[in-house]
């Protein structure tokens, strides 16, 4: 292993194994979609519409970030959708029923998310339940609780008109704050995943949990941390969706988990664990929302939307697979 060759090889390596290519690819798919719709539909290529797409991406994007961490550990979280709902309800109760100020309600909502996430983590790390089952159970529990706490009625944030403005207001370039919140969250998530020990262990867990354990890493604790983090993101998503609806709707949220997972996987996160990136996930989330909005703008009937969405999910991931294959 002579240094010159090494450094040369490593440069090649970096090019091929680095997430770079993968992102470029997903990004390519997104660009193709955007160009396609822009080409066939003038109304699609309006700033207003692009803003709508950004806004529509926020909630799913943030859910998907949390899910990305979980999937990289080799796990899955089916409960993010309904956890999100529960968090919105918690927010609603704190600010309306309990009449506490927003700056208490928002942390409370996120805490609730982190709490449910921790429960998932405990069930998975300590009780050794398969993530699929633990979080499937939690999906129902969270949904039930959201309805019980809200008495199956929406909770309106009448007392807090500022709530809507804080998140949906457009002080910057006419883009609602939710969008900046999403990108802010993305930056944090990216740094955590790539630059911190939590991120490093997230990958290690997904790569070989036993080897990680035998390296003296407290895998249980870190796994719980990852699920808690995922719950935290769900809490944030809950806040955003609450702001958009100016209310907590106990019955929404079901099905959001699949969109989030799809976003992550389309973005190149591997369900077998050990691989993934936040950038990819964000792109994946954009692909989904662009598709949904694009299709309804060009007036595709609902049943065809289903088929096309299905095919795009398959196609996008397939593309990523082919890329990996050529690499390995």
């Amino acid at each position, binding site marked *: 292993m002579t240094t010159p060759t090494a450094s040369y090889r490593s440069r090649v390596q970096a090019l091929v194994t680095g997430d770079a290519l993968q992102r470029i690819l997903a990004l390519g798919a997104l660009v193709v979609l955007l160009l396609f719709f822009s080409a066939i539909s003038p109304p699609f290529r309006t700033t207003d519409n692009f803003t*709508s797409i950004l806004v529509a991406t926020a909630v799913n994007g943030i859910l998907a970030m949390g899910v990305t961490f979980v999937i990289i550990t080799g796990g899955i979280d089916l409960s993010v959708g309904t956890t999100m709902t529960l968090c919105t309800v918690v927010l609603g109760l704190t600010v309306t029923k309990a009449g506490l100020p927003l700056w208490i309600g928002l942390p409370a909502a996120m805490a609730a998310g982190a709490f449910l996430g921790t429960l998932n983590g405990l069930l998975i790390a300590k009780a050794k339940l398969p993530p699929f089952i633990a979080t499937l159970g939690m999906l129902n529990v969270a949904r039930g609780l959201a309805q019980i706490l809200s008495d199956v009625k929406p909770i309106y944030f009448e007392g807090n008109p500022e709530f809507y403005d804080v998140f949906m207001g457009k002080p910057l370039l006419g883009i609602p704050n939710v969008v900046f919140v999403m990108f802010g969250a993305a930056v944090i998530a990216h740094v955590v995943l790539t630059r911190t020990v939590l991120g490093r262990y997230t990958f290690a867990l997904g790569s070989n949990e036993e080897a990680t354990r035998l390296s003296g890493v407290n895998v249980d604790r870190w796994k719980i941390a990852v699920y808690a983090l995922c719950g935290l993101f769900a809490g944030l998503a809950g806040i955003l969706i609450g702001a958009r609806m100016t209310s907590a709707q106990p019955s*929404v949220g079901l099905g959001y988990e699949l969109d989030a997972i799809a976003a992550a996987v389309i973005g190149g996160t591997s369900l077998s664990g050990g691989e993934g990136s936040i950038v990819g996930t964000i792109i994946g989330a954009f692909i989904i929302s662009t598709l949904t909005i694009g299709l309804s*703008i060009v007036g595709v009937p609902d049943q065809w939307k289903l088929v096309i969405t299905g095919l795009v999910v398959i196609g996008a991931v397939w593309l990523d697979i082919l890329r990996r294959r050529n690499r390995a």
Partner: protein
Amino acid sequence: GGSATGSGGTGGTKPYIAIVSKGSQHQFWQAVQKGATDEATAKGATITYEGPASESEVDKQLTMLQTALDKKPAAICFAALDSKAAGPLLQKAKDAKVPVVGFDSGVDSDIPVTTVSTDNIAAAGEAADQMAKLIGDSGKVAVIVHDQTSQTGTTRRDGFVNRMKEKHPNIQVVAVEYGAGDPVKSADLAKAVMTANPDLKGFFGANEGSAKGVLNALKETGKENKVVAIGYDSGQQQIDAIKSGVMAGAITQNPVGIGAKCVSAALDAIAGKTLPKTIDTGYYWYDKTNIDKAEIQAVLYK
């Protein structure tokens, strides 16, 4: 929700009425349950009330109806997600001499002793006429529906669209989108529709969630009071929007009334009284002008 007033089951002297509705998680169905429960307590009957989580779960509703029959009730109130699909079970009820009272969109079958129904088609038609009036009988409008696979969804959509075709030829229904009754998804779709049709004059939101979606969309795009919004059912957000004029008006049925009439009709049937083929609980158009009237307030839920 299947909360039981008194113990479920055949026990006790009170007549037991099993109510199988179309839903449980929407406030509309909650209001129906409230009406039924109050009536039951008033008239001294026990009821159970349940419905599937979504209005597309035909098969799950059949299981509920079957379970209801197993409980040997004195009568059954049933809002069929699909009447024909329920045919065999209704036959069972008939054979078991359990009177069946149909409600909501009704049960097209001769088995029910009566049907406490609202004419969704006519109601949505009313919405169409109101819309026409509000936009000067010409221009583009769009419909946001909760889904295209449930009866409430399709009847309200068709009621609105067909009335426009028949009575208001100058009005184009440029889009029908399905938002699963999710106020956010519906909002995103409504925004897309407005993007595609910048000159859109009006929206009809075919249930509470869809109507909320329309309101959210208008709010987010700053088109409040620029685009006419018409809703369906009630709920806080719609009521406020109507009071503030953001929503021109909405159709409401009488969920509490439906619940109450179901139970009373069931009790009459048990008592062997003959009942009219249909009991129309009617629907109301409400807007700024009449929203505070007693008879409207009576049929609204928050």
